[in-house]
């Protein structure tokens, strides 16, 4: 087990290095760099050359990468060339808002998808199953940003019940904080709930058709016991595996939703950096998100190994 974790972590480091090289190189090949962005097109060549030298942009790209990478490994993600603030402090400031959004969206998604998925998996021809199929088909095709706009129309424009944008920390003002969270997390939660329901349903269908369920029925267990003791546990295992993918999706997919609600999470920080051509921040955030993504996938693999004793990573 320890060996497995160790090996996975070494793999993770390799992927991360490969990845950072790609991100770094690709972003440096862009015409027009941050010095231009900061000075504007009218600035003289003299000022431009000086600023480039100060930022280290005149060094060979390989040297630039090495100095950047050695800083990153020490927790220094560089400086925003736009606001002159350290990237890591910019990210840190946005983390609480992003965590609140991810967790509440995930909660909403699970509250919807687990019962609906399980019931429609147990009774594939019931009316609940048909409604669930309809909603997950709809949810898969619904652009999340449009759903967000429609929620704003309904709850903030036509009825002034909820704020259309912004964020208040729930620790500072629980009621306002909660109100600000409702619409964005509903938008994200429903978006995730559609594929999650589909997934849980098909997992449940597979389990219900398996031989050990037939055996459990054959030995005379009540349907309740068959489902609660045998089917649910095994179906939930597959949910754990897929949850990592969905959390990763939330981290990426929240960019658009955050933008709809002007929500000050990491996603809007990235968008702002893209519009400002602030390479330092773009690199930092993308690296940060992929680090979290890989870490979550590692956690998922480990918890899967613990939950399912049949799996041994040799």
């Amino acid at each position: 087990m320890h060996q497995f974790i160790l090996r996975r972590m070494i793999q993770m480091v390799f992927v991360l290095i490969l990845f950072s090289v790609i991100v770094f190189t690709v972003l440096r090949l862009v015409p027009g760099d941050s010095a231009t962005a900061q000075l504007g097109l009218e600035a003289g060549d003299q000022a431009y050359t000086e600023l480039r030298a100060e930022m280290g942009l005149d060094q060979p790209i390989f040297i630039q990468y090495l100095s950047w990478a050695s800083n990153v490994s020490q927790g220094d993600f560089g400086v925003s060339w736009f606001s002159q603030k350290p990237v890591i402090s910019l990210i840190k400031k946005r983390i609480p808002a992003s965590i609140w959004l991810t967790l509440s969206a995930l909660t909403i998604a699970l509250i919807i998808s687990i019962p609906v998925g399980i019931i429609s998996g147990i009774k594939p021809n019931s009316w609940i199953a048909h409604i669930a199929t309809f909603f997950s088909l709809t949810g898969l095709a619904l652009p999340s940003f449009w759903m967000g706009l429609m929620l704003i129309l309904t709850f903030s424009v036509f009825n002034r019940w909820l704020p259309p944008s912004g964020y208040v920390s729930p620790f500072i003002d629980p009621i306002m904080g909660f109100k600000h969270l409702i619409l964005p997390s509903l938008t994200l939660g429903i978006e995730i709930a559609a594929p999650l329901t589909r997934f849980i349903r098909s997992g449940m269908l597979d389990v219900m058709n398996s031989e050990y369920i037939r055996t459990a029925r054959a030995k005379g267990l009540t349907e309740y016991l068959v489902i609660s003791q045998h089917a649910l546990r095994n179906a939930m295992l597959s949910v754990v595996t897929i949850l990592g993918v969905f959390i990763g999706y939330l981290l990426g997919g929240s960019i658009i939703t955050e933008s709809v609600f002007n929500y000050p999470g990491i996603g809007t920080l990235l968008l702002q950096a893209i519009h400002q051509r602030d390479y330092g921040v773009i690199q930092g955030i993308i690296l940060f998100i992929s680090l979290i993504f890989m870490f979550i996938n590692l956690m998922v693999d480990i918890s899967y190994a613990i939950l399912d004793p049949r799996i041994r990573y040799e």
Partner: protein
Amino acid sequence: MKILFSRIKIFLKAFSSNRLAALGFVIVIVMLLTALLAPILAPYPPDKQIYQDARQSPSVQHIFGTDLLGRDILSRVIYGTRISLMVGFLSMAIAASFGITAGLLAGFFGGWTDTIFMRAMDALMAFPAILLALLIMSVLGPSLANAIIAVGIIYTPTFARLIRASALSIREKEYLEAARAIGMPNWLIMIKVILLNSLSPIIVQLSLGIGYAILVEAGLSFLGLGVQPPQPAWGSMLGEARNMMVFAPWMATFPGLAIFFAVIGFNLMGDGLREAIDPHRIVVKH
């Protein structure tokens, strides 16, 4: 030939008995016709600005209303079909040609070729797709062509994995050995034997992929990183509408509905094709 006909017959029967798939097919056909006949169907040119009609709510003259510049939203939604379909078809052409080539080579030759191609695909999949699309757009700069390239790149690994898996299973089949025995060169085996036998999953993936591409492009354009104004893309229309929610809610409603129907059409068609092609599911009908 006879076998082929009976297979097509079975397929058509399975596909048309699936009501949802038929619905998807109808939506796709309607979209294609709308794109083709846009100049005839649209009541106004998509870029024509009628200032005295600006920001009108839906009426007889402007069924979907008008936007800030007095452009007819119905006409823009109709012309937007062309952009969405173009993004869907072209990005899938890119994803399929690169993905299929990589998957064929990886699956057929195995060994080092396999390792190199598939690790490259893993690196592409190592982080959330939307993030990758944003990164590509931030490098290439926002435009319709670049949005097509970005979506094509993020969907390439899906095709590569599909074809590789298919090639791996076909490699063990006797008919491949037969093709070798009659002296068929490798490239011909890859195209005539492996690719032709993988056509059905490719078609399914193309249909689902077009829906996905339309959705991603709309998202990018919504953020201002995809198709640029004044081109009438559904996503950028929504982007323009969002600051006008209070004054002109209809501006946000109709382009969104268009995206929704387009995506659900291709999704339903793809799901239906998958079920109709999968021979195990045809017989089981209660």
